[in-house]
């Protein structure tokens, strides 16, 4: 198998990889996003660039992915949702992504548009994440679009997918992952998990279905108690462990800003360093750190588990 991206090269080399996450918002100014990516160069091999997360109408992830690669020198994983585009628009964006030098796409079905900030929008879902994966692999491997029409200079990029280890029933979710593998998925990033039990149950059913696609476990260090509390209450099916939530709450009561910030960092590092070390002993091939806007933490965490910290 040929690797087009650093992400895939490192996975193939057997290196335990780290990916980060960047979120373009409702703006035309990407300065903050690019600056946020710079400190992660050399730590995360690539960063996801979200596409209308939670169905918020934000700046194009294609444009943001390109600018982050160009201006921050950070390889990107361009997230692409089926919620907002039919197969023609998806084809156009995949071709555009390849032309701009993007090397990784994360194929997502996408949150339902009625949950976002333009809830009356028409939801598309001409394809789903499985079929988008299938389409991208057809474009890359066979040099044709979904209808079999030849592409002049086919794209050269990799396609990843998502899986939710918190799903209940988990078997239904893992069978869907199997379908994604059959469709051609080359890597998987998971929804946020906080406990090894979730990682272990994931791999148990994963092995039962003979799945081989490399898995990056999603983790979410929380910059402050507010973020943790919001996440705990609003992200369906995921809860922050009570003890962790409790100590973050205690830290939020520290009045000195600098001291509070240091305490948050210390709490996160203590929890996630141990957690990542445990993940490294599992079948996972990497960790996806979804700490948007918390670069200091991401850097420190990666440095520590690599023994550089």
């Amino acid at each position: 198998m040929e690797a087009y991206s650093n992400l895939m090269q490192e996975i193939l080399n057997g290196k335990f990889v780290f990916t980060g996450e960047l979120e373009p918002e409702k703006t035309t100014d990407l300065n903050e996003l690019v600056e946020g990516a710079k400190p992660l160069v050399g730590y995360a091999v690539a960063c996801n660039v979200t596409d209308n997360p939670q169905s918020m109408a934000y700046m194009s992830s294609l444009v943001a992915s390109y600018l982050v690669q160009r201006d921050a020198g950070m390889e990107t994983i361009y997230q692409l949702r089926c919620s907002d585009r039919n197969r023609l628009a998806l084809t156009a964006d995949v071709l555009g992504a390849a032309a701009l030098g993007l090397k990784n796409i994360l194929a997502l079905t996408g949150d339902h548009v009625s949950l976002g900030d333009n809830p009356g929008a028409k939801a598309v879902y001409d394809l789903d994440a499985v079929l988008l994966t299938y389409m991208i692999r057809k474009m890359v491997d066979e040099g044709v679009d979904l209808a079999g029409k030849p592409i002049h200079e086919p794209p050269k990029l990799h396609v990843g997918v998502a899986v939710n280890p918190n799903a209940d029933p988990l078997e239904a979710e893992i069978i869907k992952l199997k379908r994604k593998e059959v469709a051609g998925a080359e890597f998987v990033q998971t929804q946020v998990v906080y406990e090894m039990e979730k990682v272990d149950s994931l791999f148990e059913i994963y092995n039962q279905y003979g799945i081989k696609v490399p898995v990056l476990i999603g983790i979410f260090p929380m910059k402050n108690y507010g973020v943790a509390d919001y996440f705990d209450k609003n992200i369906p099916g995921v809860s922050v462990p009570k003890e962790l939530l409790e100590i973050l709450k205690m830290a939020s009561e520290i009045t000195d800003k600098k001291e509070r910030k240091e305490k948050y960092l210390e709490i996160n590092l203590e929890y996630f360093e141990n957690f990542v070390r445990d993940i490294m002993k599992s079948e996972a091939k990497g960790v996806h750190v979804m700490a948007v806007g918390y670069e200091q933490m991401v850097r420190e965490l990666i440095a520590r588990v690599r023994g550089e910290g």
Partner: protein
Amino acid sequence: MIVVEQKPLEDILDMVKDCDRMLVLGCDGCSGIYQVGGEKQAEMLSSMLRMGKKTKGENKEGDLKIEASTVLRQCDKEIVREALEGSIGGYDAVLSMACGAGVQTVAEVFPEKLVHPAVNTKFIGMQDREMGDLHERCRACGDCILAETGGVCPIARCAKSLLNGPCGGQVEGKCEVGGYEHDCAWILIYNKLKEFERLDQFLKLRLMRDNRISESPRDLKGSIKYSGGGD
């Protein structure tokens, strides 16, 4: 059956404000069966419209003629013609309580009449008499895969109409769209197929739909073969 819901009375009054001589036409088909647009409802609506119009004083009382009637099925041209051709001359407009197909059938059979809808057509659904509910069960997509999905339709019952679900928006079998009230269709499918030891069907990667199958307007030309009369 096709599920309809009556429009708010104010909206109907506004829609028919210029109509003095009007037939409120129920349908004994779908909308009559679950008592939204049958004979009784047509009579009730016509009397409410008479009262409403008198209250508003938009029409001269002597000119006002609002009556109710019903036909067996408003979506059948022959039935509509036979039922109404003797009496329709006495009205300028028809206020139909049938689904959109019924409204348009009446309009097509009697092109000289104004035909307005008194109801909104909602979906093709299942009636639950015990709870008094109606639930969507079919989207008339034209390519039925119920045999593969344990008799649960993901096109009608999954908020995203996914062919390869479940998505990440389900929690313990409930869908995030609509606030976790609806069952996730794909978890229902998973449970059903597991119960019947048919998880091989769940593993199957379903390729993209050819959407031309459900592109409107759709026809089935010459496909109806009657052995007897029009009923």
